[in-house]
């Protein structure tokens, strides 16, 4: 594909202020690989300010200088075989009807009937690397809530964006946060003003359509004093057989007395490497809740973290992960109690089957001076067959006398007696198995919004039944 001329065309059209309409399905297919020129092109196409261009280039330098992590799951990424930017043919659609037929169809296949979207308070549906659909309900706008895709937010609210961009996750945090800094594109930007409660959850669907395409969204959530927001991110991707890379950064700022609930339901396809960074900064009496259900992907390395910087801040991390078909789920949670009277709760449930590996890597650190901080960590694992594995690597560090940290974990199989008992009630082995598994997940499942937990339930039942009677 003649890339150069396409870019020129688009830049030209953009300069004319026209909406871009092209026949090509993917007008912008970058060459594979990553260097300065790619980063500069991305920045140029997006029409970004100078500081962002410089920031991207700096991030690229950091990315190149950082080594790959020498721990964790096996990662064999050829960074030169990944496309770092894709632009769907529709840049921005104002109304549902403006969305291309194809995209609407995919959404329907995902189980989101058109009627249901009306219940969604507003949605930024991300198709490939660009927010395609941005629909914000009027009442939210009236309340002063900003819910945009990150690219639009950068244009509309440059100062606000700059203030919070790569603050809690420093760009030099890890190789992959630097990568996101260099090539980020899309993601959500949410700003909730003081004392505003957003009653309906804000939702977005992520989707990756092109083979070997990277998706590097950058999500920022700012909850001002006394506000409440619940954000739901759902990710699915169709199955391709060449490795794709997903490396997002999520930054959540929870101000005094604010409450943020961040829910991710993730079902990447089996080819995707999901190496994301998620972090929240919680101020005085703030509350941060992470809820995640993670099912797909070839390798996931995802450790949502909460920095409790204000007195009385709390964090809760609930996660479900399921690894099957030789995939590797490396999940965990990190909570650092920087302030007194803070509390945290981490509950992780993992299931491995059909050669899958689940790993829990957790860190709870209570530095000196964080009086009376309390933390509880619980990680349970269920292993459904011989070839699957579970590893648990928690780190609990306490440097403060008055703190209390408790940790418990268990790993094991489905008890024969349990199975027998349920089967004696007239259920088949499959049904009994999935009933036990769902019961095992129940603590976390009930925190996941209904439509997602239904979807998850369906998916888990499907996975269990694939095992057949041999499991």
């Amino acid at each position: 594909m003649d890339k150069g001329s396409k870019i020129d065309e688009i830049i030209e059209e953009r300069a004319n202020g026209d909406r871009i309409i092209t026949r090509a399905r993917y007008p912008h297919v970058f060459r594979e690989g990553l260097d300065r020129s790619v980063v500069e092109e991305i920045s140029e196409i997006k029409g970004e300010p100078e500081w962002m261009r410089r920031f991207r280039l700096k991030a690229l330098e950091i990315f190149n200088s950082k080594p790959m992590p020498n721990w964790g799951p096996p990662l064999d990424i050829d960074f030169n075989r990944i496309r770092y930017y894709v632009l769907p043919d529709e840049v921005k659609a104002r109304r549902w009807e403006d969305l291309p037929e194809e995209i609407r169809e995919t959404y329907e296949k995902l189980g989101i009937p058109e009627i249901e979207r009306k219940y969604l308070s507003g949605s930024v549906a991300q198709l490939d690397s660009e927010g395609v659909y941005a629909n914000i309900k009027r009442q939210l706008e009236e309340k002063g809530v900003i819910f945009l895709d990150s690219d639009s937010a950068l244009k509309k609210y440059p100062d606000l964006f700059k203030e919070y961009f790569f603050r809690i996750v420093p760009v030099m945090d890890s190789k992959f946060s630097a990568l996101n800094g260099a090539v980020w594109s899309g993601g959500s930007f949410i700003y909730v003003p003081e004392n505003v409660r957003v009653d309906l959850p804000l939702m977005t669907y992520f989707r990756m359509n092109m083979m070997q395409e990277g998706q590097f969204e950058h999500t920022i959530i700012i909850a001002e004093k006394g506000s409440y927001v619940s954000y739901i991110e759902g990710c699915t991707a169709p199955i391709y057989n060449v490795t794709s890379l997903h490396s997002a950064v999520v930054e959540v700022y929870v101000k005094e007395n604010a409450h943020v609930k961040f829910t991710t339901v993730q079902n990447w396809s089996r080819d995707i490497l999901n190496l994301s960074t998620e972090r929240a900064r919680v101020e005085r009496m703030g509350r941060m809740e992470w809820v995640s259900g993670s099912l797909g992907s070839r390798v996931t390395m995802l450790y949502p973290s909460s920095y409790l910087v204000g007195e009385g801040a709390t964090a809760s991390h609930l996660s479900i992960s399921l690894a099957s078909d030789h995939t590797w789920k490396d999940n965990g949670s990190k909570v650092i109690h920087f302030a007194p009277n803070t509390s945290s709760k981490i509950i992780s449930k993992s299931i491995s089957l059909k050669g899958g590996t689940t790993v829990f890597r957790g860190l709870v650190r209570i530095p000196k001076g964080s009086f009376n901080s309390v933390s509880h960590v619980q990680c349970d694992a269920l292993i459904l067959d011989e070839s699957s594995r579970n590893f648990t690597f928690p780190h609990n560090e306490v440097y403060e006398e008055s703190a209390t940290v408790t940790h418990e974990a268990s790993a094991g199989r489905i008890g024969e007696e349990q199975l027998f008992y349920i089967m004696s009630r007239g259920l088949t082995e499959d049904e009994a198995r999935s009933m036990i598994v769902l019961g095992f997940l129940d603590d976390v499942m009930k925190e996941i919004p209904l439509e997602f937990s239904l979807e998850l339930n369906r998916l888990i039942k499907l996975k269990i039944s694939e095992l057949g009677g041999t499991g």
Partner: protein
Amino acid sequence: MISEDDIERFSRSRYEPEWLLNLRKLNLRKFQMFREKKISDSPIERSYTKVDETFIEEAMENGTGGSFREEGEYFVIDYTSGGEMDVKSSSLKYTVLRSMQNALVDFKEDIIKSMEDPRDEWSALSNALWSTGVFLKVPSDRSCERVIKFRVIYPSKPLIKKDVFIIGSNSHMQFVEYSQVKDGFRGLEETYLDIGKNSTLKHLTMVDGNNSHIISIKNSSLGNDSNDEWYYALKNLKNGIVVTNSVLRGENSSIIHRGALIGKAYEHYDVGTNIYHTGKGTRSDSNVRAALKDFSRSVIRGRIHISSESRESNAYFSGNSLLLSENAKSNALPFLEIEGDGAQARHSATITNLDYDQLFYAQTRGLDERESRNIIVEGFLDPVVRQILIYEGTRYLIFND
């Protein structure tokens, strides 16, 4: 760092057989391998404890030493002086007790077995460089009726030693080890325990560190239906690294480990319990308890590894820390590595402070604050303290609080 030539010179100067030299070289290579190994578990796992490794070369220069004598009910192993290391005590009957060097000829097979497969870098290093140690063997079907009590006296100069305890099948043994350490000792010691099928071993280790830096490794290998019960208590170690590697290779073998430590001043303890379940129907139950005063710090590690061939196994590890001062610190790293669906493993870890309700309650019963604290700490360390009382009749850990 030590090279193979150094090992060769060291071994030749001690007139050691060729096979031992080769084993030492193999272990040195393994040591380097462990060092270079990709960290796959945790990026910060190794950052908790820093080890001053200068003692290694000094220990090589110091060479052999050690004498052996009986004092009342104790066998005293004194590494401060050279001398005769063999004992022929009529009370031991069939049990063989020798120095490692004197066991090289008669018990070659046992020593090879103890050196073939080191589980971690420290075991490999001690295999490569040990200069002295004790060899004990209880033959099959000949239980050692007497509770053997060792008093081990460590010198002030660096030392690397290796002990080998072989328990044959269908036998039974109990021993108590009481380590007295001279001020400022730095060293590495490894104990290899091989418990044959249908045998039991119960042992108690007490270390009074006297400001020393000790790396103490216990490797045990259990045969079918065997049992290993170990209680250990540590105190006064400036820098104490205690690692247990237990391989439950036999069917229905089981272990019970109970550790207790009291930290004070700027002491640093790193206690690791690694349990590898490979046999069917194996059981393990381990518990480490640390009471920490002043500026002391503990790192409690646990690693339960259940391999896929192990079926119907059950493992439990728990680590508990009690912080008694505002500057005490504790880290808990209880790891689980489970392969396959054949087993159940659980672990728990708690880090808490002194319960003031308990303190108040004890005081209403007429105890003063110091006594109440002691009684709570003693209760906390009870699983080990009780065993010490059974064998020694003293409240070893608490009495000089």
